[in-house]
């Protein structure tokens, strides 16, 4: 991991926040530790508090309780303009009365950086973000992807200790999103700055993050590396939200297997007590259509670019996710087996 010399650590320490017109706390007792240079992605459904956490870190909202430490310094005592944080909102909030170079140089001008040095830094930033040929253009003439780059260049130009991106890809159309996501990740890695990245898109979170924070209703459900969260989700919510898994109860058959619906023996990802009831997460890669296995009826089918995502209900009432390369009608009866190379994630007992 390349780390910028400015990259800072950040701790949200038991942060509580309620909006003045809100009845419920928007952020409840949140503790998050961010290492210098890390890309940490906050993910969760709408209204879970992701953007609120960013605004608290940026000094735009003041929490009622808790502390915020940036590089060992009490950040809550600092006004937003003193925190040296780059914030890119979902709307990008470009200054439409300024051209692109002036947008990128705005922060440097506010910090009274001499003109010659400012121009050089702006040029460097435009180059890093690959928008140098648009320097004199109006921001109104830019596409969504270009606007995003200008917003990031503007935030990075002031050498922030932490960069905060609030749903930076949300305004882009689906085809652009994946291409620009890869570009953005490359750009963030190249800059080496500590980054907090908000999204409600789980695939985006898993693709970009060094560390993922899953939030729900203002509190943290789980923090970890993307692969850890995928393989070992802490609970049903994390499994369902991050991997679109179906969670269901099963009985432990041995220390590493469960019987699903009393008929299908499946491997699990951790030790369990034989005979105990556990909650497992079922993903489509865990099952396949076979000549043998358990019988079920297709209750849902959705075409997903060359593959049909099916949901199959067994006689015992379990719903299994499975993929098919051919179209099968809803209501059809098929046989489904467990993919023995995979494991079900245990998400609760």
């Amino acid at each position, binding site marked *: 991991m390349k780390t910028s010399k400015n990259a800072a650590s950040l701790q949200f320490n038991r942060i509580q926040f309620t*909006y*003045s*017109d809100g009845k419920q706390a928007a952020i409840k007792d949140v503790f998050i530790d961010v290492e210098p240079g890390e890309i940490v992605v906050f993910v969760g459904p709408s209204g879970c508090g992701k953007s609120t956490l960013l*605004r608290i870190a*940026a*000094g*735009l909202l003041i929490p009622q309780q808790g502390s915020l430490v940036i590089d060992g310094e009490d950040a809550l005592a600092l*006004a*937003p*303009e003193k*925190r*040296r*944080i*780059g*914030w*890119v*909102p979902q*709307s990008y*909030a*470009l*200054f*439409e*009365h300024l051209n692109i170079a002036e947008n990128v140089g*705005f*922060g440097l001008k*506010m*910090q009274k950086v001499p003109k010659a040095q400012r121009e050089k830094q702006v040029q460097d930033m435009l180059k890093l973000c690959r928008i140098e040929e648009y320097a004199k253009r109006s921001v109104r003439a830019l596409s969504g992807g270009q606007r995003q780059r200008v917003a990031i260049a*503007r*935030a990075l130009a*002031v050498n*922030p200790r932490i960069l905060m991106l609030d749903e930076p890809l949300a305004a882009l159309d689906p085809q652009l999103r994946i291409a620009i996501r890869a570009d953005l990740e490359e750009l963030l890695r190249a800059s080496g700055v500590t980054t907090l990245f908000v999204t409600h898109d789980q695939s985006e979170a898993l693709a970009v993050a060094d560390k993922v924070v899953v939030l729900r209703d203002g509190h943290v459900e789980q923090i970890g590396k993307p692969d850890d969260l995928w393989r070992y989700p802490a609970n049903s919510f994390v499994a369902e939200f991050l991997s679109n898994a179906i969670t269901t109860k099963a009985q432990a058959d041995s220390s590493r297997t469960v019987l699903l619906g009393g008929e299908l023996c499946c491997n699990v990802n951790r030790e369990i007590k034989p005979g105990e009831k556990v909650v497992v997460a079922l993903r489509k890669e865990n099952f396949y259509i076979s000549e043998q296995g358990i019988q079920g009826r297709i209750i849902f089918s959705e075409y997903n670019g060359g593959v049909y995502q099916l949901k199959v209900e067994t006689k015992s009432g379990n719903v299994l996710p499975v993929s098919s390369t051919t179209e099968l009608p809803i209501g059809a009866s098929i046989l489904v087996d467990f993919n023995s190379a995979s494991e079900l994630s245990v998400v609760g007992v």
Partner: protein
Amino acid sequence: MSKKSTVKQPKDQIRGIGRLFAWVSATMCLLPLVLVFAVSTSEVWQRGPWAGGFTLKYLAQGWQTISPYAWFSIKLALLVLLLNFIIGIPTSWVLARHRFPGRDLLFSLTNVPIAVPGIAMGLALIITYPLLRRNGSLLVAGHLLYTLPYFIGSLTPQLNQRSVRDVEWVAATLGANFPKRVMYVIFPKIRTSLLAATIMVVTLSMGEFNVSFFLFNPQNKPLPVELYSAYITGRIEVAAAITLCFLCFVVPAAILLERLGGAKVGNV
């Protein structure tokens, strides 16, 4: 070479009717202005438009009558505008950006003067502060009360917009303190609304009659009050000429203010 085929467009009756209504409305609004021009430039209007010949003497006479009052009205409007800026901008900011107990009530209260008839407001002010009438400050207060709700009502929704808040927050994270944020980011963003509010205040104050009628004194007589005197005492050609002079003040002022801001009024 093949012949180009033209596609026959279906008739859009609603659009046609709408266009007709727009033209009728515009004509109805402009017709009185044309008549005012005709009356003020006709030698003897009773004989018909320009029947006795075209003349500018009534305009000259009208201007001579009202010019001192016109300059007073301009000065009054500019003073009222300044007070609107001093009081209205911070009030709009607080109403737009801060949530506090009683905020909605305060916002409703700022709109009360819109619902109160000018005559009632004028009467209430003169009963409450009779001594202030003599030095003209009651007239200023009346105009301020009358225009402030429009000023705040025009500015508050704009300051409350997420796009304005976002640019301000971004500027804050980039190191701009509050005065710099106002100057470099908020002002350019709300310029159009501010301009609309400015035009509204100036034109409302210049044309205000009801409040002024109760609060003026002979030394501080606004133009609309003098217009009224001219209408009830003078001949119709002079009254029309005075009206034309008045319009010559109000309309170019609105156009000029609009052009200075580089945007159309209402495009907020």
